């Protein structure tokens, strides 16, 4: 049993050590620029990835500003799509599952937004369709993928791929959670620093 656990943890450790730091830094810059121009961040994925997207939205919109919730500072506008299960099932049932992200994204997406697409294989058709739409609109794409990165990694501006063997969903999704929390932590520290500076100067 202990060996089994150790093996899994070693694989996670190996993936964490090989993460593309530069691409994660690019993602920070994309999010910073969106914040400055009052744009929105749309985030999506299937299954566990959709759960990660939902979790990240609450962290990014609220936890980033946790230490300053009483202050009137401009916050992030991160939105998970589809925003309701009604919309999800309407697109899936009436049009097709490949439209569940692209459908809602077409209603919202403006040039000054950014998207975060999450797909372990990097090849989920519904994710790729939404990403292609964003690319056509010249909207910045942060892509979180795994395995060999797939098409998502090719299309993304910030290519955050967790290199693993094919089908290693548990590793990829676990590491995706780490990367998403890193984004939250970075901006939380950033805004704390800005607020401290403001207080010092006033």
């Amino acid at each position, binding site marked *: 049993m202990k060996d089994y656990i150790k093996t899994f943890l070693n694989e996670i450790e190996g993936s964490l050590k090989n993460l593309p730091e530069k691409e994660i830094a690019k993602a920070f810059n994309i999010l*910073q620029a969106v914040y400055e121009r009052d744009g929105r961040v749309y985030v999506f994925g299937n299954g566990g990835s959709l759960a990660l997207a939902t979790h990240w939205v609450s962290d990014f919109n609220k936890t980033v500003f946790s230490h300053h919730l009483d202050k009137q500072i401009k916050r992030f506008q991160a939105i998970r799509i589809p925003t309701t299960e009604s919309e999800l099932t309407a697109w899936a049932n009436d049009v097709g599952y490949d439209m569940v992200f692209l459908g809602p994204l077409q209603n919202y997406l403006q040039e000054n937004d950014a998207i975060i697409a999450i797909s372990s294989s990097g090849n989920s058709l519904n994710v790729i369709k939404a990403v292609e739409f964003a690319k056509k609109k*010249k909207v910045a794409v942060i892509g979180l993928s795994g395995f060999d990165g797939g098409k998502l990694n090719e299309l993304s501006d910030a290519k955050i791929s967790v290199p693993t063997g094919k089908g290693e969903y548990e590793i990829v999704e676990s590491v995706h959670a780490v990367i998403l929390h890193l984004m939250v932590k*970075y901006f939380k520290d950033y805004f704390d620093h800005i607020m401290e500076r403001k207080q010092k100067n006033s």
Partner: protein
Amino acid sequence: MILVRAPLRISFVGGGTDLPDFYHSSPGRVLSVTIDKYVYVLINPTPLVHKFTIKYQKTEFVDSPEEIENTRVRATLLDLDIRKTGIEIGSFADLPAKTGLGSSSSFTVALLKGLNAYLGKNFDKGELAEAASRLEIELLKEPIGKQDQYAASFGGFNIFQFNEDDSVDVESILLDYKKKLLLEDHVLLFFTGITRTASSVLTDQKSKIDKNFDTYKKMADSVFEFNELLLAGDIKSMAKMLHEGWERKKSLSSNISNSIIDELYKAGMNSGAMGGKILGAGGGGCIMFLASPEKHAEVRKKMNEMFKKNNLSDGKEIPVRFVQSGTDILLNNDNTLNGF
């Protein structure tokens, strides 16, 4: 209505090596950052007014693009073949023109982005920077380089490399917030109150590029060292490099500095600044210092005294923050209207 915003920029090292007369022989490089001061361009269809309405310091109200006096607007409309009347173009800015912060190119970039959106076209950052450079350098024959168009289009801290074949490599500097804010806390920016057009300084500078080739080469290479200092957060060494770079740049043309600029710079250095430079082509515009935050009050006081002494009534400090965003469309509700 379409509203576009383009940031101004501060160039730290390498300015001048973006002139084709240099980079056609050896790669030019500039390291710059965009700041939270912007040029705005607003484009509004006026279906009931069959005119071209151009609003800046003055208002033009004409029947065809050829009649427009504003050279940039005229050239852009003609180049994009926008001949149908019923369009209004307005420009707004956080700062006056000719401050050495690249505002005229920021305007061109914003205008091009906006007019292309008006035509339903969408450029990526590289295409936009290239289109603005082509307009200013090839069509308007301005004796300038490409650094400002690229800085405004891309946004953030970047190294631009201008290659012999006229291509441009863009390397985004991935600087964490601690280093960025540390540098911000050391920067002091002053508008000298002296304005000049970049063209007047650059024309003389350009004619002497051959003679000063080695100096230009050093300026282009200094970008690498500055980048390392930036990533290490070594403000003192960055300030020293800026100082040396400024001394070097002054030797390129007698128009780059003058006795008042020299006096202002010396005053800043003597009151506690660690280094600095004139921003833009030179001859006027803005002066930037790096100084420890505790020295800021002293430098500020001294500079205000110097502005008074030299009758520079427009001389004043410009508080500045670095920004990551480049040229952005803040509003585009043309399509919404079409839906009704």
